[in-house]
């Protein structure tokens, strides 16, 4: 039986450094190639030595597919392609291809220039890596080679996020990347057709959550921000440069406009302007509202949101600042947080998921004293709010996707083990399909039952096929046995089964035979029984002969002989 093998190198029972290897129909595919936010050592990249100990990866991988531009999905790409070595095709959607290098460059700057790490990829490597990228369009079927084809579906989540349908022959796998089943202010909802893949590899970040209505959340968020501003406090919203940031910007922008508020909104880093530019560009990837109105006014041209300068953080009076990165683990958001943490009027709103080990995770868990580098401690007095704005599918969304795609097997990645376990139970109970949740480096094998297409000549089909003795020959073409023998130049062989039975009978051989004949005639009614002149009895195609043994004439030996077809019939 053919098998599909799935091995997560990252994101197996974990969030971060997504990297999943799939072997399907003799093809090896790497899905995503991300880094881990929680580590600063070698663990931040997937362990590529799993694939090969030494040398380049090109000969082991048929293609690499990147689902979207978040660093935990593409952060290790230059490392893999340039430092480990991979020259094959890399597939990503157009927006991902446009935005990905910006983020990688930013990431590189922080790691190399700020922290002074060496042995890291360079700008040139990012450029070289991006040269290997082949862009994908939504719903466009791309032939990687003669057998392997991939197709991208809209996934919501962030601009350009895609789910991929990978197909070899009749076997197929769908990888969701990160996706979102509820539309938001700037992106639509994920959608897939009923492609019935053999395995659906789905993220499960919110495996145990069923979220409230989106509007409810938005109202809450606006209310919290508004109240804090009216109190004269400063609001820090740590975000990743792209994705949630844009949604929240649109939300606040429209709110500011409607309520006629004057407090400034800032957005840190020049990176965002570059990114916003792409958001304006890839209008077809956004939601219905923005698509329909961009001719009059592009929603990403903000009126109230200005660029942030470091000195503004000390300005008096209320303000809202979006700062990167989103988990408060480094960079500007952390600097601002340190400045503002002492004042209880201020507020920090964490709009998304925080990986364990980050400061975001710590303060969300209620820690009020933080240890900073160099033994310093920081008292956290400001209010900490959590608002699940991250655009991952919740439990109900995951179930909805399963219902849409109708997979034969389910595989969960990109989530915490305990939560996965829970969802796994639900899925197995609900859909009666197998659900797997391999850890990193663990291989899941799923046997498939592919249908093999076979051509047949019309003549042969017209003849009854039941006992035709046809053989499969060549590339799945059915021919009759005679023709096959002729073409192969072989003679036909007869296979007969024989059996001896000893009897005690004083009569002569012909007499015994006659007695057997009359006996059988009386017993086996409805069968053709012939007494042939050459001293044999034929029952249908079974031949019976009688001979005396040499030593004792009274001992008769019955010789029965039948062809193999008869054996089949009897069974």
């Amino acid at each position, binding site marked *: 039986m053919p098998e599909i093998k799935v091995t997560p190198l990252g994101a197996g029972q974990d969030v971060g450094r997504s990297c999943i290897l799939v072997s399907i129909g003799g093809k090896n595919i790497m899905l995503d190639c991300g880094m881990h936010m929680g580590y600063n050592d070698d663990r931040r990249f997937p362990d590529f030595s799993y694939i090969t100990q030494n040398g380049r990866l090109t000969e082991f991988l048929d293609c690499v597919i990147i689902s979207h531009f978040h660093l935990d999905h593409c952060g290790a790409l230059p490392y893999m392609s340039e430092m480990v070595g991979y020259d094959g095709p890399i597939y990503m959607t157009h927006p991902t291809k446009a935005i990905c290098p910006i983020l990688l460059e930013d990431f590189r700057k922080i790691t190399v220039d700020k922290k002074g790490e060496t042995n890291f990829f360079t700008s040139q490597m990012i450029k070289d890596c991006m040269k290997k990228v082949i862009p994908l369009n939504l719903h466009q079927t791309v032939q990687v080679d003669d057998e392997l084809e991939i197709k991208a579906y809209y996934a919501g989540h962030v601009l350009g996020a895609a789910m991929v349908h990978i197909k070899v022959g009749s076997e197929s796998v769908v990888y969701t990347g990160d996706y979102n089943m509820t539309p938001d202010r700037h992106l639509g909802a994920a959608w897939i057709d009923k492609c019935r893949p053999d395995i659906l590899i789905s993220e499960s970040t919110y495996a145990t959550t069923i979220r*409230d209505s989106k*509007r409810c*959340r938005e109202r*809450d968020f606006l209310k919290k921000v508004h109240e804090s501003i009216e109190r004269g406090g400063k609001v820090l919203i740590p975000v990743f440069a792209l994705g949630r940031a844009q949604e929240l910007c649109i939300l606040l922008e429209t709110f500011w406009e409607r309520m006629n508020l004057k407090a400034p909104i800032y957005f840190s880093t020049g990176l965002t302007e570059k990114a916003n530019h792409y958001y304006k560009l890839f209008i077809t990837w956004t939601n*219905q509202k923005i698509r329909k109105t961009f001719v009059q006014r592009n929603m990403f041209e903000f009126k109230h949101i200005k660029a942030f300068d470091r000195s503004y953080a000390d300005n008096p009076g209320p303000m809202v600042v979006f700062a990167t990165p989103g988990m408060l683990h480094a960079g500007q958001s952390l600097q601002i947080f340190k400045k503002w943490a002492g004042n209880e009027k201020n507020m920090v709103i964490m709009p998304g998921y925080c990986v364990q080990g980050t400061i975001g995770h710590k303060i969300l868990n209620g820690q009020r004293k933080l240890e900073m580098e160099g033994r310093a401690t920081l008292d956290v007095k400001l209010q900490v709010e959590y608002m699940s704005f991250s655009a991952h599918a919740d439990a109900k969304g995951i179930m909805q996707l399963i219902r849409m795609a109708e997979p034969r097997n389910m595989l969960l990645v990109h989530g915490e083990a305990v939560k996965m376990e*829970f969802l796994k139970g639900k899925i197995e109970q609900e859909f009666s399909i197998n659900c797997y949740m391999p850890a990193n480096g663990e291989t899941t094998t799923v046997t498939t039952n592919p249908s093999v297409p076979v051509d047949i000549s019309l003549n042969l089909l017209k003849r009854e096929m039941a006992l035709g003795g046809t053989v499969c020959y060549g590339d799945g073409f059915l021919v009759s046995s005679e023709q096959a023998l002729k073409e192969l130049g072989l003679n036909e062989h007869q296979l007969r089964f024989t059996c001896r039975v000893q009897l005690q009978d004083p009569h002569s051989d012909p007499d015994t035979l006659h007695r057997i004949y009359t006996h059988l005639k009386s017993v086996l009614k409805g069968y053709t029984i012939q007494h042939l002149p050459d001293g044999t009895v034929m029952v249908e195609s079974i031949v019976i002969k009688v001979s005396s043994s040499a030593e004792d004439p009274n001992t008769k030996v019955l010789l029965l002989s039948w062809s193999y077809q008869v054996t089949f019939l009897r069974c």
Partner: protein
Amino acid sequence: SAALHVDLCKATNSTDALQYLLQFARKPVEAESVEGVVRILLEHYYKETDTSVRLKIASLLGLLSKTQGFRPDCIVDDIINTLCNEKSHQVLAQLLDTLLVVGTELPDSPAVRQRLVQVSCKHLSDTYFGVRNKCLQLLGCVGTWKDTLGLLRDVQSIISDYFGDQDPRVRTAALKAMACRLLSDDYEQVRSAAVQMVWVLSQLYPESIVPIPSSNEEIRLVDDAFGKISHMVSDGSWMVRVQAAKTLGSMLQVSPHFLEQTLDKKLMSDLRRKRTAHERAKELFASGEFSSGRKWADDAPKEKLDTNTVNLIASGACGAFVHGLEDEMFEVRIAAVEALCQLARSSPTFAEKCLDFLVDMFNDEIEEVRLQSIHVLRQISTHITLREDQLDTVLAVLEDSSRDIREALHELLCYTNVSTKECIQLALLELLKNLNKYPTDRNSVWKCLKFLGSRHPTLVLPLVPELLSTHPYFDTPEPDMDDPAYIAVLVLVFNAAKSCPTMPALFSDHTFRHYAYLRDSLSHLVPPLRLPGRKQVLGLDPVDSGSASGSVESAQLFLQQSLNRISTIQNLEAPGAQDLLNFTIRDVQRLGHLQTQLSGAADFCATYLRCQLLLMKALQEKLWNMAVPLCLKQNVTATAAARQILEETYKLEFLYGGLENRQIATIHHVRLQAKALQLILSARTRQGLDPLISSCEKFLQEIEAFQRSFLTELPHLHDSFVDKLLELKPRISACSSVELVKILQTTLRQSGLLQLRLPEQIHRATATIIEPTGESDNPLRFTSGLVVALDIDATLEHVQDPQNTVKVQVLYPDGQSHVIHPKPGDFRKPGADRHRLITQVYLSHTAWTEPSQIEVRLLLSYSSASSSLSSSKHLGWSDSSDGLQSPEAVVEGTIPFSKPVKVFIMPKPARR
């Protein structure tokens, strides 16, 4: 199990056995002993002769096979065997039901499935409907599993064969089995059709009870269908989602229990089962299972419960509306809002629950959705009282830049109930802010406050001193009477004071003066109050309640009597007829002023009578007896009268709505008379025969056209002008034109007055221009040769098809006039028979030396071809082309139907 065996052996007769079985059914059975029990039961089953006991055993088998950890595949054969030997139809049906249970327990075994399909096919030919029913159910259930394609096809065709069954119950089952299967079809059109099919079924048989495959419980079909359609709200295709959301709105018979679940995503109770109290208690515990995502780290999985009760997908109906309202496509959102509205209107409790969701929709990104949800909230507002925080969210929308939204919100506030005085204060504050920001909303805001005040007098009362800024000891400065904000406050207070007699005691002196002023200037907003020390002028108040309804009837009677009196006039030359007409016209017009409900009818009568009067006067002129050259002057007045009558008839025909064919015939009759008059006059004045002949021919054609189009009305026109003419028709068509004129002259003078019969309702189309007001003294300056845009805002009432008929006319002082046709998009329809025109007209002119006024008015255009002949409406395209079209020349014209408004403009010469 041993005990059972003993019991069953002991049982001597069937009643005893049944008792034992019933007792047994209440006890739990462990998974490992199930098989033994089943064997014992089967053994007893074979021996038993009584059908009721066999029935019970069969149902027990079904129950047992649902036991956790027991795989019922071993008993399938036994059941099928018994099935073959069973004679009783009821038991057969029960056994099939058991198989259904077994089938759902073993979804992954193709062999079992194959057998089940075979068995059910075999029994489909049973004579008892129950058995056929069960078979179809079984097929529907088993066939839905992914399977070899061939089997599926079979099942489909087998089920569809039973669409034509003689028994309606079987047909229902067949359709249902099919529809439910098709809900998960691959193609969206099929799914969409299936949704409709399920809906139709649920409407046809809402109360029939259907079993649930996964349990032995039963629910109403409409509830089941509701659950299934709710499920489709999260379908992959948005067309299906729209369809499903719309359909949900029309399922009003659904139980409240199911309805409320559509608003809660997390409630995991599956819709398919009525639950025992015990189960519900468990569920309360279980509902903490999923976190809401609002708090950090509350999503750690809690203790795992018996997951059988918690069902994620089967409970698709949970939160159907939550999904629908946050759908990606605004079409789905609108459909969901509409569905919510329909359901909420029939269920007050549901209305209360969906309030929060609707209020949330005010924040939608698409204006259409916001508008729709405001309208919906207005429609259900009788059921609800807004809390302060909800009101806050609602009022925030007042700052919206879209005029439609603001006005919809004002209308909503007119109908809302609020609970506290803080709410009133909040609403007033926000409305004043709105007034300040958008002064054009003045009328709408005042109207809104009027209703707000009259709805909540007791809540306004404690606010009065603050609102009027009075002080117990000091005199406060008198506010400016022209301040719209102050007027707004007064409107609120006065309307509240109407039903709160203690309030006027809190007013200061100037308030009373302002009351008197406003009562006169804005009488539609300020109600009459019983104020101390003021004369009651109740009798003169036309809007005084109580006698209002009675007076409508009496007024109607009066109108009718006046008309009857007119009918006494024998012919147009009768003496005293003119005076009678004059008086009646006066009476009727006055009546129209007093009784606004009858103003349309009264106006209509008056105009009609005036036509008759004019005709009468024209005929009585002495000129008829004089020689032509001597009476040139009188001739001119008669010609003018004829023209005026013609104009009036067009007004009668097109300005009034609600006319029946009879009235139209009458109007045309008058027109014919006027034309006859014209013909006679022209025959007298003009020399030469040729033009006369052609106009005579034309007139004859018109008579024919009249006869053709009002054939059914001719009997009512007895003794009239036309009637007489038609009698003489053979003579007329033969005679010369001079003779014809003579005949016309005599018939016209002898014909009687045609009596007018009023239809049920007549409405006069009216238009009021709200903007521009015509009060401004500042001229609109612009450079000549360029254009200036003038905003026009007008309300139209009782206008049919305003998009095609209403035009704007601009009259310049030099007599130049422009007619502008507004875009169809400029018309909005805020209510029945009401339209609102908000448009811009462009003005331009050559330079003037000083500012001057232009006139703007609305015109109603008409075309006699389109609507004059009601019969021609239903002529097809081909009919109209073959000469049946009335030969009467198509008359197109316009009727001014609004008061002209003057606008001061000043085109300046262009600077070089």
